């Protein structure tokens, strides 16, 4: 089992703090992504983030800030295009998804020297998080929590019924673009922890589970945050115990817990109705 000496390592402490920080963002933003059916959009934004990672590696600038700005710009562009051509939204997402990813790969290819760190951003490595990264993640969390609390009523109304929300004078377009930028920043802070390929899993599995147990949007945000934390911590333990990559371990653990919960709920339902 866990030995206490493990926690004396700085990188382990940082990993645990990172798990808490991403769970806060994943809970709030994941709930909004799921109720607004923005999962595919989030996938597109996540993959354009790779363009940001490539740019950072090519220029040698710090990864998190560069990717944060790059991804927010891409999310804004995607949001504005999707508003103009609503019926073409899924195609646009597909184009930006592929283009962002390709751009990132080209930048990495052009970057001088051997890029060992590349895999980190595809599959994540929570154990490689630096103190500086933690500060950036904490700032992003503060922004997300503040925005979600301040605009809670408007977000609730807009998520439930955007057309009606407009008749109430709620600035629906602005909120939609804000939500996409929050998605972009959440993706950026999660890339290092679970990796680009698994970001979607950590933004959707916790809210899907949370939705089963909650009756309010706020409750769903908190519950999905707690599920995300449970998944991250148990995944980290699995990663340590079986010596496998942290990103895949977190998502594998999440999937198993998800199946257990959904499966047992189905069985309980059967037994009750029998």
């Amino acid at each position, binding site marked *: 089992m866990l030995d206490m000496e493990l926690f004396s390592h700085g990188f382990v402490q940082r990993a645990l703090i990172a798990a808490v920080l991403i769970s806060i963002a994943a809970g709030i933003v994941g709930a909004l992504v799921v*109720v607004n059916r923005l999962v595919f959009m989030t996938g597109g934004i996540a993959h354009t983030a790779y363009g940001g990672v490539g740019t950072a590696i090519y220029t040698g600038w710090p990864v998190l800030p560069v990717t944060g700005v790059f991804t927010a710009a891409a999310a804004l562009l995607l949001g504005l295009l999707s508003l103009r051509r609503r019926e073409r939204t899924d195609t646009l997402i597909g184009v930006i998804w592929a283009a962002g990813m390709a751009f990132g790969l080209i930048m990495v290819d052009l970057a001088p020297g051997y890029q060992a760190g590349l895999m980190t951003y595809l599959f994540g490595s929570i154990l490689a998080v630096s103190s500086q990264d933690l500060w950036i993640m904490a700032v992003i969390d503060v922004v997300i929590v503040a925005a979600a*609390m301040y605009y809670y*009523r*408007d977000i609730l109304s807009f998520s*439930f019924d955007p057309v009606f*929300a407009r008749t*109430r*004078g709620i600035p629906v377009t602005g909120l939609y673009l804000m939500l996409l930028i929050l998605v972009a920043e959440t993706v950026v802070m999660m890339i290092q922890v679970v990796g680009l390929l698994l970001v979607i899993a950590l933004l959707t599995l916790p809210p899907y589970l949370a*939705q089963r147990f909650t009756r*309010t949007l706020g409750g769903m945000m908190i519950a999905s945050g707690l599920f995300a934390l449970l998944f991250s911590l148990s995944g980290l333990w699995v990663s340590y115990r079986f010596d496998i990559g942290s990103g895949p371990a977190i998502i594998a653990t999440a999937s198993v817990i998800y199946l257990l919960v959904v499966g047992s709920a189905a069985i309980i339902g059967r037994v009750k109705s029998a």
Partner: protein
Amino acid sequence: MTAAQTHAAIAVEDLRFGFGDQPVLESVNFRIDEGAFTVIVGPNGGGKTTLLHLILGLYRPDHGHVRVFGDKPGRHPERIGYVPQHGNLAPGFPATVEQVVLMGLPHGRRHGPGFWRDERDRAAEAMRRAGVSELAVRAYGALSGGQRQRVLIARALITQPELLLLDEPFSNIDPYGRACIHETLEDLGQGLTRVMVSHDLGITRQSVTQVLAVNRLVLSGVGPGITDEMLELMYGRHGEQCPMHEHLMVGYGGRD
């Protein structure tokens, strides 16, 4: 107050609107008086919902004017209650009935995750008027179609609007639910201007004071009856021998 007394609730002049090159509404002129119970009828795709959205200010006319309480649409959210089709809303959305009703409050200076005492009192009053008080703590997603529709009516009533716009409140609702909604609408009664879209001609009742037949053009008639011109506008010309003719004439009390 004076503005409300001197103006029609809704006045539409020479309106034209389309999506791209596709004309949806043309040369539309009508007026809805305060206190009227107006039913908008017409075939699917005829422009009924679009007309409602123009009145709400969700679209801008390509030509002509829409005036609501003598002003541009969208200026007075608190005076207008809007009830969309319930079927369009996300199932399984995490919200209680009370919260859905609270969403009817206009965008204002109040922010933050909670709702205020006075707002919750207003929600309680709206739920009472719509007959859904006992559902307050239920999850919206767990309700039947008829119950959801009445919750959306309560959401529209929370501001105590002078004008209520309903978009096909009876679609996909069983007969019992329809009767309940009818009763609710009748009870809301005097003083409230009601405009209801319906593709079912059978809903025209005694309490209806005006019918608008919409199929790209709009014909307006006094009272609940549907005229021959309206039927022709909506469904084309049908001869005396055509079963459609008899169905329309007898079934819906046409020929006013």
